[in-house]
């Protein structure tokens, strides 16, 4: 009982705080809109801006509509930090063309514009707020658009891995027997490689490119999802309500979609949010090993690879080129940290075994 009142009081406090924050954000937004540069950029990319507004709406709705989930989340400051970090990165990704508009001559917005071609990185200066890297690629632009790349890579990989995992894990768990045995041995085979090693091999064979990196990482990640779903199905299958549904004449597909998958969603959310960060790290590691996209593509791993020759600074000035590592390093760190915190939060909230001990 005490817990409930405490929680409801928490909500009230949060509402008022959120109101203040929203007001401040709105004020900043209005001020920003007053600037002709901002208006012009928004008019140039109305769809991206609309997507951003939609995201803000969803975010506000999610955070204000009371639910067990958000209530639990608010109790842990680390979870709130994780949630905010990810919300921030989503906003940056959606607003990328507004924050860093591609030059009019650009043929692919993901290609970072170059300011000259010289090797030595140049420090932050007007027009290049984060400085420029080796080859004079603009770091700010690379990091903003690299956010989109990070989401694209991690979401696509998760989508592929989850799709394969759902299909094979579903078949395995539902039909059991020989199908199960065969599919589980298949996962054994894929799990017989440390993730990075298999990914390195796949990229080496298929060739260097972002698409191949995504394929390589998806190949590494699907078995975990398949096993997870299989385990869930096995635990659900014997339960009374499934037996009842079956007795009532429900078909296999209906049982899977109505009863099994809804139950598996939470563990999938936990696992995939923890995976998002891991995927971005693996992709960056491949870029670091020289197996990533071409230099000049907006990708954090590639940017860090460009910093390799400069992290030691100049003689007497050990931190002369701090910006080449600090900016992309911070971006990747915060992104991964956000997902890790969020994943931990999801686990604490959604994992029923730990719930009781809270």
């Amino acid at each position: 009982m005490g817990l409930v009142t405490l929680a409801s009081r928490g909500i009230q406090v949060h509402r008022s705080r959120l109101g203040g924050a929203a007001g401040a954000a709105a004020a900043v937004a209005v001020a920003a809109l007053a600037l002709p540069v901002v208006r012009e950029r928004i008019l140039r990319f109305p769809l991206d801006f609309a997507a951003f507004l939609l995201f803000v709406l969803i975010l506000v709705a999610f955070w204000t509509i009371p639910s067990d989930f958000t209530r639990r989340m608010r109790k842990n400051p680390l979870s709130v930090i994780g949630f905010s970090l990810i919300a921030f990165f989503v906003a940056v990704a959606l607003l990328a063309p507004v924050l860093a508009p591609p030059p009019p001559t650009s043929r692919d917005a993901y290609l970072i514009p170059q300011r000259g071609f010289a090797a030595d990185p140049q420090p932050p200066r007007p027009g290049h707020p984060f400085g420029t890297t080796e080859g004079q690629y603009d770091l700010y632009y690379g990091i903003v658009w690299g956010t989109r790349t990070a989401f694209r890579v991690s979401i696509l990989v998760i989508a592929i891995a989850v799709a394969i995992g759902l299909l094979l894990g579903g078949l395995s768990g539902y039909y059991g027997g020989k199908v199960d045995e065969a599919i589980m041995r298949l996962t054994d085979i894929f799990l017989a490689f440390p993730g990075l090693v298999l990914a390195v091999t796949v990229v080496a064979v298929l060739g260097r490119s972002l698409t191949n990196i995504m394929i390589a990482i998806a190949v590494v990640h699907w078995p975990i999802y398949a096993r997870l779903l299989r385990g869930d199905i096995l635990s659900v299958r014997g339960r009374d309500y499934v037996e009842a549904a079956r007795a009532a004449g429900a078909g296999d597909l209906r049982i899977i979609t109505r009863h099994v998958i809804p139950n598996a969603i939470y563990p999938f959310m936990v696992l995939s949010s923890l995976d998002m960060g891991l995927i971005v790290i693996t992709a960056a590691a491949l870029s670091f090993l020289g197996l990533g996209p071409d230099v000049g593509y907006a990708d954090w791993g590639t940017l860090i690879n460009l910093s390799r020759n400069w992290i030691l600074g100049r003689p007497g000035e050990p931190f002369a080129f701090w910006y080449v590592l600090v900016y992309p390093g911070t971006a990747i760190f915060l992104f991964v940290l956000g997902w890790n915190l969020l994943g931990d939060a999801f686990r604490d909230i959604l994992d029923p075994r730990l719930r009781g001990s809270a």
Partner: protein
Amino acid sequence: MAGYIARRLVLLPVVAFGVTVLIFALLQFLDPAIRAGAFITNPNQLKAIDAIIRKYGLDQPVYVQYWTWLREVFTGNLGWSQAARMPVGEAILRFFPPTLELTLFAFVPIMLMGVWMGTAAAVHRDRLIDHVTRVFSISFRSLPSFVWGLLVLMVTYGRLNWFPPGRLSLEADLFVRNPEHRFVAYTGLMTVDALLNGQLWIFVDAIRHLAGPALTLTMVSIALLVRVMRSSMLEVLNQDYVRTARSKGVAEPVVITRHARKNALIPVITLSSLTIVGLLGGVVITETIFNFPGIGRWGAFAAQQLDIPGVTGFTMFVAAITVLGNLLADVLYAYFDPRIRLQ
């Protein structure tokens, strides 16, 4: 338990077979001309590429090619690694001992510190030490290993000149190589060999070179262990027998070390062999950064050089180690978990 292990052993060849099929299937994505490249040793042979494709049967049905390839693999002919400039088999024998040594040097601190930090966090749950541990472990795993590696190299070698890259310093390397000194490589592990040969300074030198990469590996890999240890410990601390011990007035440190931690270690022991497997993946990055002549640096270099026989040989070897590691994990699990042991 015997049945459980026997079942695992039966499955081993199945998985091994599957690994070869997977690797071979991957190779099928390559153009026959590129696969023929594995048999090419100088540019002028390129003109005769069709002849090479025919000679090695690369235009034959897939299952025939697979059989040919498998036979070669099993007779130990893994091809020629252009990146290592030696046959793949020889490269593995050459590069594995340094990696094994590095792995062991990272493994010990990971286990000791992981258990210690995990226990401390669980015992002082939701207090400062728990939060600090969590923040540390989450930060460690949120920053990519190559950033850690570069930072460690920068500070410990560039600034402090403590931990140089490579495997041995010049003096030690020349001493070991010089036949007059009769330095015998009993194990291939430099630290052990140095002690067996009675050369303490080489032992110290080897440690200095191992410290940097081992430190990096430790930072990156410790998080998982801390988390498993913490939750395992939490679970055990809630068990009836621990409560009983406490209520009987057993001193708290004794409860923790004797009663709780012993049982909480079971999942950690299972995890230990998997940690070694994880480290084998981690060495690809670390060895590259520290220029440490192990299997990971070779694998990464082979991938960059598109040395396909090298990459496949490296991958298959690591897969073999991983399969054995998984088996060991299963056995340890079966041995320590009474539910299975008593079956």
